[in-house]
Each structure stands twice: as C-alpha cells, then as structure tokens.
C-alpha cells in the first residue's frame, strides 16, 4: 500500500490537456535552469539566452530570427505527416530516412537536367522529392500490410540504409564534377538558379518549404476535422475494433498515413537541400526526422499544436547553439534540455488522465 497513488479520471481533464504543453515548458525551464546552474552557468542567463536572445538580442537577432522559420519549416512539415499515422496508432519512426531519400531523389532529378533554365524544373523536383520520401515509406507500409512486420523497426532501420545511400551518392553518383574530387554535389542554391529554393522575403527565412509546411498544417487540419479519412484515422487510433466494424480498411490506412508522412518528409528534405543546405553532402541530414517526432507529440498530434511546437523546438535549437557559443555550454547539455521538454510533456500528460490521491487505497 502506498501513500500516494494515481487514480484514473472518468474523463481526461480538458483544462490540463490544453495546459500541459505550457506546464511542460515551464517545468523544463526550471529543471534545465538547475542543470545549467550545476554546470556553473547563471541559470537565468542561460534560459534567457535560449528563449529570448535568438529573437530579440540586438547583436544576434538579425542573424538568428530568420533561422527560426528555416529550422521550424521542415520540423512542422515532417511532424504534420507523422501525426496522421500516430493518431491512427501507426508508428513511423523513419522520417529521417524518408527526408534523406526525398533530398537525394529531388536533387538528383535537378542535377540530371543541369544546367537547364526551365521554370518547370523546381516543381518537378518538389514532386520528385515527395515521391522519393513516399517510396521509402512504402517499404515499411508494404511489408506491414503484406507480411505483418513491425513498422517501427523497419522504418527505423531504413534510416541507416538511407544514410549509407547518402554517403555513397555524395561521393559517387551525385558528386560535383567540378568539385576537385571533394565529396558533395553541385550547390543548387548558389550555382543552379532554376533548381534553387531561395529566401522569398529577405530577412524572414521564409522559403518554399516553409510555405509548404503552412499548407500542410491547413491540409491536415481540414483532413482531421472534416474528411472521412481523418475520421477513420481517429477511429482506428481510439477503438481499432470499432474502426473495422465501421468499415475502415486497416491496410489502406497504413498505406495512406505512411505514404503521406513519407511524401511530406521527402518534400522537406528536398526544400532543405535546394535551400538552406544547398547541396547533397555526407552530413546533409541533421536529425530533423527524429526531432519531428518530439514536435508531433509536443503539439498533441494536432496540426495547429504542431505549428506552435515546431516554432518552439526551432527556438531551442537556435537558442541552444547560442548558449553553446556564448556560455560555452556542452552540446550534450542542450540535447538534454530538449529531451527534458518531451519528458515533462509526457509526465504532465499522466496528470491530465489521472488524479493524484493521497492516503491509503480502499481496495487492496
């Protein structure tokens, strides 16, 4: 018998469900502050450096403000796709691989047509990127629907396959012929105007990938609230037997949600390689596909929540880099700080569904 126990609430607390992300951020600031203090930094300065300086510091603001959208764009686009599957109980953990394959296929199509000037090239490359990600996601989807394999394992393992393909093409197939033998493709952003994804409004960081992320949020919102597919996704996640009874085809759901997530991740990869990154290189991927999983949950798997969570996560990235630079924090401390955010979110979730009771229980 314990003195403190959790009692399931009859219905999840609506107030707490809405407030958990905010409470999680506050708890992360407190626990993170303690950690920074233990590392010998002034906790208030550290928190300010992460959350405030990137946007408002007179010296760095002008550089780091556009980074917010640059970093948030791919996170939001990928997380929006992932959340569709997560709502249905389909766990695509391999967005990172789909992101890499989208970048390779999208950039590959452009590079194959170098140095064409046609304005149809960019849309063609976007489509190729999305198809690349989609096709990579279809592997776990097909194996799951055909042979009942676990999509978590297959999609995750395919990330490592994609990373090896990336290493191979950046020093082989897609290597810049004028690059003096260094690995890495031609720079699309700098040397190939028809294939580049430029900043649309100077000083904002807004590029086509950010536009696509916002469009994806609207698409997902309409799908989940108004369309039968969104209803099928929610039903399958909440009551799988009821979903089958309602006529939801589980295989079609797997193909749709993995496919959409793959296409979004692939497009995100292409927008990155043709814009902020510029070229295919061995270390092109930077973990957006994994961080997007945190973003999806931080945003409560809701499109608008994901939009906000993506911006917040991007802020901790930029602020974290700034803290490394200014306060000489180790990179691991920043990663730990981001991990705390997910930890506290999940912990707070427990309290939305359960109530804390003190005293001895009645039933042994």
């Amino acid at each position, binding site marked *: 018998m314990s003195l403190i126990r959790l009692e399931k609430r009859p219905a999840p607390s609506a107030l707490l469900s809405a407030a958990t992300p905010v409470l999680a951020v506050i708890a992360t600031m407190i626990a993170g502050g303690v950690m920074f203090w233990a590392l010998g930094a002034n906790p208030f300065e550290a928190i300010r450096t992460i959350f405030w300086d990137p946007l408002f510091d007179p010296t760095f603001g002008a550089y780091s403000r556009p980074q917010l959208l640059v970093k948030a764009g791919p996170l939001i686009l990928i997380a929006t796709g992932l959340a569709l599957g997560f709502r249905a109980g389909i766990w695509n953990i391999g967005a990172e691989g789909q992101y890499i394959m989208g970048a390779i296929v999208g950039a590959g199509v452009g590079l194959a047509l170098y140095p064409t000037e046609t304005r149809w090239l960019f849309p063609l490359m976007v489509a190729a990127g999305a198809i690349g990600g989609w096709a990579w996601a279809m592997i776990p989807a097909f194996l799951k629907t055909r042979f009942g394999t676990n999509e978590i394992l297959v999609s995750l393992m395919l990330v490592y396959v994609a990373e090896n393909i990336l290493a191979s093409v950046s020093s082989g197939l897609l290597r810049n012929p004028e690059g003096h033998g260094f690995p890495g493709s031609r720079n699309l952003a700098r040397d190939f105007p028809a294939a580049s994804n430029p900043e649309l409004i100077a000083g904002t960081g807004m590029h086509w990938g950010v536009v696509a992320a916002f469009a994806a949020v609207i698409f997902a919102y309409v799908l989940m609230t108004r369309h*039968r*597919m969104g*209803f099928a996704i929610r039903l399958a996640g909440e*009551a799988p037997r*009821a979903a089958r*009874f*309602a006529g939801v085809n589980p295989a079609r759901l797997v193909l749709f949600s993995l496919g959409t997530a793959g296409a979004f991740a692939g497009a995100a990869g292409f927008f990155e390689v043709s814009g902020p990154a510029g070229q295919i290189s061995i270390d092109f991927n930077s973990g957006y596909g994994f961080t997007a999983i945190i973003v999806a949950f931080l945003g409560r798997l809701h499109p608008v929540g994901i939009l906000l969570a993506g911006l917040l996560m991007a802020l901790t990235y930029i602020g974290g880099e700034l803290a490394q630079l200014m306060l000489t924090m180790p990179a691991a401390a920043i990663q730990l700080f981001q991990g705390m955010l997910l930890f506290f979110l999940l912990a707070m979730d427990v309290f939305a569904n359960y109530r804390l009771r003190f005293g001895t229980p009645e039933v*042994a």
Partner: protein
Amino acid sequence: MTQALLTLEGLTKAYPGVVANNDISFEIGHGQVHALLGENGAGKSTLVKTIYGLVKPDAGRMTLDGRPYAPANPRMARAEGVAMVFQHFSLFDALDVAENIALGMDNPPGRRQLAARITEVSEAYGLPLDPHRIVGDLSAGERQRVEIVRCLLQNPKLLIMDEPTSVLTPQEVDILFKTLRKLAAEGTAILYISHKLEEIRSLCEHATVLRLGEVVADCDPRQQSARDLAELMVGTTLHTPSREAGAPGEVLLEVTGLSLPAPTDFGTALRDVGFSLCAGEVLGIGGVAGNGQDELLAALSGERLAPAGTIRLRGKDVGRLPPNARRALGILAAPEERLGHSAAPEMSLTENALLTGAVREKLISNGFISWPRSRSFAQRIIEGFDVRTPGPEVAAGALSGGNLQKFVIGREILQAPDIFVVNQPTWGVDASAAAAIRQAILDLSAKGAGVVVISQDLDELMEISDRFTALNEGRLAPIRPAKGLTTEEIGLMMGGAHDMEVAHVETLAEVDA
C-alpha cells in the same frame, strides 16, 4: 437453526454520486442457500465485494459465527472461511488446471499432493476434473468447475457465487445445482447471486431482494411466482414485449456452408453454418459464450469476409463485400461489446452516429463529413430511443450501459435495415431498457425486416424468436420453431452437458437420499 453464520447489520457504502448500498441487513444460516436478487446496478456486486473483503463499508458491521467480521482484503476473508466464484473467470488459458488452482491459493501444497486433492475433492462433489488438462481447452462449464474446486479446497463455510449459470447450458446447470445442494446439505452456506428467477425458485430457500441499494424484500422464493419476484426487483409492473404474429414473407437472407477459421488462437472456427431468414421473422441463436457468436456476427456484418457464395441477400452474393457495401444493401449489425466495438467510447455520440450511419443516412458526401447532419441523426436516435444523456456531444463512454445499448440499437434500427443482426441485445441492461429494446426489435420485424438475435439469455430468445437454433463449437443446431421447445431440447441443441460427467453426482445423490 440456533445461530446465523453471517449477519449483516446496516451496511452502507456510497460512491461519488450514488449510494450503492444503503443500510443493508440480513442473515445467512449454516447450510442455507440464500439468493441475492436484483437488477444491474441494484448494489449486489458492492455487497458481495464487501463480504469478500474487496470493499470497505462506510458504515455497518458484520459478524461471522457470532464473532465480528471485517475483512481488510480477500486473503483475510478466505482465512475466515469465505470463498467466492466470480462471474468472469480469472484463469490462465495456457496453464493446466492444477497450476491455475495453485495460483489462486494462499498456501498451495506441493504439485503431486495438490493434484491428488483436486481429484479427490472434485470427485466427491460430482465435478470431475483432470488436474493436468490445459485450461484453454476446457469448456466454460469445466472452467467454472476449476474455480469452484479452487474454493472447495479451502473448506469454506460460505461460498459466494456470482451469476454462475450465465455461461452454462441447462444440463450443466443441473449438474451445478446437484453439487450446490450437496454442499448445503453438508453445512456450507451459499450466497447465490442471480437475476434468473426460475433458477432461484428451484434452488434457494431464502431470498433477499435489492433495489437501488436497499433491501426491498426478504422472502422464500419457492412461495412466490417468478413474476412477483421480477416486480419486486424492478419496482414496477413489467411490460412484456408483444407483436402481431404475421405470416413470414419472402426469403431475404440465405447462408449456406459458411466455414471460417478461428481469427485467433482462442477464437472459434465457424463450421458449415447455414440458415435462411424471411422477411418479418426473428431467428434466435442461443449458445454458451465462446461458441462462435462473435465470429458469426463478424462474418454477417462484413468485418470478416466470408467465402464467395456463402451469404446471399435476395439471391445476390454479398460474402465478399466489406461492411459499408453490406450496409448500403440493407444488412446492419450491432456487436456484443459496446465499448470499443459497436461504439468508440472516447468519441461523442455524434461521431458514433457517423460510425455506422455514414452510408445510409448520407452523412458523407465526396469524402467530406456533414457534421450538422450527423448531429441531427444522433439527436434523432437520442429522442427516438429514450437515451438519457445531456446531448449528442457527450462521449459514448460516459453513458450507462443501458443507455449506450439503446443508442447502439437505435442507431441501426433508425436506418431501416432489411436484415438486422444483433449479439446480446440486452446484456448488462436494466429490465425496463431491456423490454424497450426487445419491443424495438419486434417492431422492426413487424415492418418486414429479418432479424437475427444472438443471445445467451434463453428467456429473451424464447420471448421474441419465431425460430430457434443454437451455436455449439461453431456449428449451428438444426433450426426449430421456438414455440413449444422444452428446456431439455434447448439444452441439447446448445451441446448438452458438453460431455461433462454426471455419474458421480447421481451415486452421491442416492447415498444422500
């Protein structure tokens, strides 16, 4: 009788929003078979959980053999000689009988010794059990024997049995009653919980009737008619469903040679199931739980596809059609499990109305959902079927079992099906809601629909069916007109005693006589 075995005085237990037990007092004598009667929600479960040490009362006291009795947990209750057989078995399918029994004992003896004791006790009470058989292979009646033998090994003074016959065929019920009578003759008191009145009248010498948490009557059930007992339980005059008997119409649904493998390891395969259903007819399908009821409903609703040609609606093969295509043709269904199968508990009633109503009520056009139409459909169900709820935005899981069942049944019936298949339409539903549901089913058939009612409640089936059959290990017994069937015949259709032995009881009964 000099002194009562167990006395209850003023037991009261309140939960937030409901008083489950209010000032309950009665006593049980040594060797008495005492019935505890009441509808769902009358407070029977709370009361027996109090006696078994699972619930601590807010007020009141108990004495056992004259000494104060206040068990803090079931282990203490067992130590004092109180044992309980639950309605839902707590057995591990993959373990054998002896292992299961050892797991439920506080101080199990060694394996070999335990096996010998099991054989000894089970033979003595006419409940033959092989200690080495795997529980997953046993019938429901045999599983219950495992639970009973587990209790008997502890030589209880009081044995509590919660709805023990809901999983038994009439023949198996006979065997159980012989055992219980023998136990009572040896001095063990039995507290027998049920809502089946005829059983109580044949078995028990004393009955306590609960209604809304209070004792409303103490009586000798043998002196009362079943109808009197029912009215004591419900508190009002019961309305018996009725309808105009009409001649059956054309054949609507034909099922022939339907065989399907078991969906899971402990599921049931359907074997060569065949029947035909006419317009305006109610076909009742009885049987002990786990004999293919869920599987038959899934095959008819389209949740599992059937082999081509095995299911025909007006001559058209529908066996390979998915659920929504069958709904479009007029075959609607309501599965047994309300939470998570026929309804999604965390979704609103509006969303649950959409769950099966999308096709026939045209709630979706071009893939987009019309929420106003879904809401008004939910509202129509709520009004038409007297669903007690603040409104259609309430989550399905927040409704009581009876109200949610009325919603589920209403949702299908309002869509005017040609064929309606329902499994356990009134399971866990209070008597007045059950009567309303049965009446709605009869009204539907009177309008020309064919209805298949799968149920484990034989009284219900006899009341509303035109023809009757039973599922036994995935096979359907030959269909007979319901009128004039005897309990004996029904029991045999359900699989008789499932090859359970009865010989020992009879010899013992002779010795007793």
